[in-house]
């Protein structure tokens, strides 16, 4: 029972970070209908940003998100304005090629700048934990979960209550109709890509104290982000949140009860089952 609770809690904590990655991808897809294959690489940029701020300026990784979020937002907005925007409405495979290409440029630039060596960010709390009724909770993971929860809550509030948020949602629901209602959809796209990038960058910042950093790390997370968003329903923020936590728990529990070598199999079987019975994802509305 203790082992089960332990794995469940680890799964939820890591799932929170996954959710953040998934939400970023789902916002971008929802508003722009562009599948961002550079999502993992944007996350990687966020990791290196956190790493640099920590090693050169001594800024704590969790504090540094105050700097990372706006910088990553601007980076995403720049990408949208300069590259992605030109491909709006183009064939999906062209958009995919563009984002894959951007991702490769990012990872190779980082390789030139930082070499391909693994970087480890060691803070004094990197391997500390809190004991709670026999279950140990990783301090950095717990902090990052709390930050994730706060950011997600703020995001919901922004999207539901503010005018800009509602305009973003309107664009996501029907681009043409939104434009007819006087919403500046181009601006909304920039905003959405900026937000998506900021979320991915934040997720990168949040896991860097407990993980390691190297230029090719992006692909792992791109794949994960896809599974999460498709599982939850493309374009659905609630779906991405749930999807992230489900994947986190599935990985963690299957590592204990089956084998850590098999956990990816479990995740993908689960993924296939959801697609089989609910092709649009858990929270998705079928567009057929």
């Amino acid at each position, binding site marked *: 029972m203790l082992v089960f609770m332990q*794995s469940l809690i680890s799964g939820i904590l890591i799932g929170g970070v996954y959710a953040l990655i998934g939400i970023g991808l789902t916002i971008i897809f929802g508003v722009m209908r562009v599948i961002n294959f550079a999502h993992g690489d944007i996350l990687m940029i966020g990791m290196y940003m956190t790493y640099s701020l920590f090693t050169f300026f001594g800024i704590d990784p969790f504090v540094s998100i105050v700097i990372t979020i706006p910088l990553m937002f601007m980076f995403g907005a720049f990408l949208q304005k300069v590259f992605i925007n030109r491909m709006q409405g183009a064939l999906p495979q062209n958009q995919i090629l563009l984002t894959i290409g951007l991702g490769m440029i990012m990872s190779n630039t980082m390789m030139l700048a930082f070499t391909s060596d693994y970087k*480890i960010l060691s803070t004094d709390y990197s*391997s500390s934990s809190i*004991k709670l009724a026999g279950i140990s909770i990783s301090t950095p993971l717990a902090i990052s979960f709390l930050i994730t929860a706060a950011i997600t809550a703020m995001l919901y509030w922004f999207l539901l209550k503010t005018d800009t948020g509602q305009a973003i949602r309107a664009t996501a629901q029907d681009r043409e109709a939104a434009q007819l209602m006087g919403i500046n959809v181009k601006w909304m796209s920039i905003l959405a890509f900026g937000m998506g990038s900021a979320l991915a960058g934040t997720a990168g910042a949040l896991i860097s104290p407990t993980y390691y950093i190297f230029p090719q*790390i992006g692909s792992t997370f791109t794949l994960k982000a896809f599974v999460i968003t498709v599982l939850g329903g493309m374009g659905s923020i609630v779906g991405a949140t749930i999807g992230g936590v489900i994947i986190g728990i599935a990985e*963690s*529990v299957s*590592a*204990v009860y089956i084998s850590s070598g098999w956990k*990816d199999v479990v995740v993908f079987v689960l993924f296939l089952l959801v697609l089989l019975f609910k092709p649009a994802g858990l929270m998705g509305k079928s567009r057929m």
Partner: protein
Amino acid sequence: MTRNLLALLLAASLAVPGMASAAPVKIGFINSITGPEAPIGENLTNGVTMAIEDLKKKGVEVQLMKEDDTGKPQISMSAMEKLAGQGVAGVVGPYTSACANAVSKLAEKYKVPLLVPAAAKEEITRQGLKYVYRLNAPADKYASSLIDAALVMGKPKTIAFIYENTDFGTSTVKTAKEYIAKKGIKMVADESYSKGSPDYRSTLSKIKGQNPDLVFMVSYVADAILLMRQSREIGLQPQAFLGGGAGFTTVQFAKETTISNNVFSTTQWTDDVSWPGAKDFFNRYKAKFGKEPTYHAACAYQAMLIMGETASKNGGDREKTKAGLKSGSWKGIMGDTKFEDYDGFTNQNKHQMLVLQIQDGQFETVFPTNFASKKPIFPFPKWK
């Protein structure tokens, strides 16, 4: 005609022992100079460079023929073919197991003595190849030396394995499993993982539930740090952590003292060992290249010394060099070296693996006792 006569004369002078210094002896060196293994390959190249200089001081002129295999077996094989055609007396290298294994069969085919300095795969010297020699200890010694050390220090009854599901991880653990079966230790967990997952906590808490006496891990640098960090979080508390792989012997790992202290690992060579010239080699290497040598550098240095001496003594003749390697014995920075046939191995040096323990962020040799620089700390102290 005159040219033929000259060649004959030259050959005669080469064949006479003691006159070897008259003409340089050709020795091939295959190494991963570029490619993903290049950072380690650099150590081998530097070791060989130092060996050539030292040979020169002894009056042995070596004409070194360097070949880059970029870490790929097929390129390594064509390098070997090229060298065989250029009339080398012998070849030192290649670095990686995959390359060395591929090249070993070619060495036999072309009858070129091959001295493998640092590749660990057991199979290389287990195929009964007469022209293939190996200086370093094969992979099975990694596991057995660690387990032996644990058995000297205490009475462990159970062991848990956690390792990367690659060739490197699974093969090391396979030999470890065979060894513990002989020693009567029970395996309570057998967990392989795919490298790069951010969370090993659940696997580790499963292992913790079994309460093993020993935890044996095989992984590269980044995962080694992650695994130990998360072991601390979970409170996994065995009598000893045994690091059976590359990641646990790096300076980067040792620097993370909160999690790396008191972890055991194993290596082929260190500078504080009492083998003749080890400390001197370390100092000269550091002065020359501005970096500390790894065990690869020491292996390559000693391998080139042995090959250079033997080949020049035998006038660059391949058959005689092969016989010379077989019958000779050496004493140097790698301890006593002799190529023997035992336990299914052919021409394998019975190299003594050293067991290290990280104490205050430094690697200290703790086993075998006659080479030890510090006493081992056992059992593993309670996590703070």
